């Protein structure tokens, strides 16, 4: 059975809890990522911050797609105020603390289940709590297609 170590992306790109949200947005944009692990001073994973967390921090109210006019109903001055506040905010203010992670020996089948049931696209990989890489849907799909089976 394939394990996480067979399809891990050995990338340690991460931020800390005191990274400004503005820098996270810049990093996600440059790296074309949707989310990134949050680590402490020992490189231990303590959370996750995604572009969704940043956007919902500015627009917490759900904007209904079927009614695009709703965007005009939001008070613009309030949005500007919020943008200023969010721009100065830190990762710790908006990160998800209950983060799921796997280790290098976790079976691929477990990761498939996790990604499908929780709708995760990227999951941090740890060794003794420390970040050693990332598994994402694209590398998981590639390994599954290469093998034809997860077993």
């Amino acid at each position, binding site marked *: 059975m394939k394990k996480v170590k067979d399809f891990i992306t*050995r*990338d*340690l790109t991460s931020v800390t809890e005191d990274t400004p949200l503005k820098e996270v947005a810049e*990093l996600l944009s*440059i*790296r074309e990522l949707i989310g990134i692990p949050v680590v402490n001073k020992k*490189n231990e994973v303590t959370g996750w911050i995604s572009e969704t967390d940043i956007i919902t921090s500015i627009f917490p109210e759900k904007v209904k797609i079927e009614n695009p006019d709703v965007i005009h109903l939001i008070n613009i001055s309030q949005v500007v105020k919020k943008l200023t506040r969010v721009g100065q905010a830190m990762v710790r203010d908006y990160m998800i603390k209950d983060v799921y992670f796997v280790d290098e020996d976790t079976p691929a089948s477990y990761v498939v289940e996790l990604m499908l049931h929780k709708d995760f696209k990227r999951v941090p990989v740890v060794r003794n709590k420390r970040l050693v890489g990332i598994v994402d849907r694209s590398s998981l799909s590639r390994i599954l297609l290469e093998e034809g089976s997860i077993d």
Partner: protein
Amino acid sequence: MIVTVTLNPAFDHLLFFSKIFMGKLNRAVSTLRMPGGKGINVAGSLAVLGDEVVATGFLGGQGSRAFEGFLRKIGVTTSFTYIDQEIRTDFYIIEDKKNRQSLFIEKSSHIELRYLNSFKANFKRLLHSAKLVEIGGSLPKGIPPNFINELILSANKKKVKVVLNLQESILKECLAGSSSFIVCPDLRESCYIFGEDLCNAASRHKAAQWLLNKGAEIVILKYGDLCYFVAKKDEVWEGEIGIEGSNVIMLGVRDGMLAGFIHNYLKTNDIGEALKFGLGVALSTAQNKMSYLHSKKQAEELCVMAKLRKIA
């Protein structure tokens, strides 16, 4: 885990010609593009040797993803700080008929203070899992002279071994008040260091002694294509390995030697054995078109060709 630091990485773009006609149109027979920089080359060779290695430094622009993707494919973990500038490209021109290899280096980026601070914080986090840190290559603009010294002191504080693969001017700045495990000066542009001509045996001893007195545990000096002088406080070796033929590419060869030495010494604690294996890795790298060795097995086979002398 081994961490390699490359503050000024670049793509190495290799262009192969049978012969170059200056001032005329020249078409390359083949090309190769791969991540480069001294620390990057060391990381590549260590990964091929089976070591767990993390490459760090500054990257930026569109090329970053390809740069990192290439490293990960050969087993190197990446942990770079991203800057708002495009990564450099260095051109390596190889002329088969003349057996001539020329390197053209692009101007380096300017690193802003905010990126330096971000790098330092990341470096300190990596130290928690590191057993050795290798710092190699040139410095981009914007990096203060004491920056490397700060990195060494952070590693010393965490009792992480430090290997320095730097130019003479940087070494002079960064050795003050710190201790290093291995010092292997970057001697690509000269065979002189601290005013000593390394082609002269007595001068090699003097230069090595100067570095040992500055806190280095082991000193490695290059005095020919693949001729090395290795000194510890109470032990000195010299070694060489023949490098012949037109199929050798010198890119990454010296970094391969250092990677081989580190890999072996951490296991054997024997500088003679480590030098022998390092020379095998260097020759395997020279015979590979990439900037790292072909395979560990080939390095093990080639290292028996090394000629070693115990001097003291």
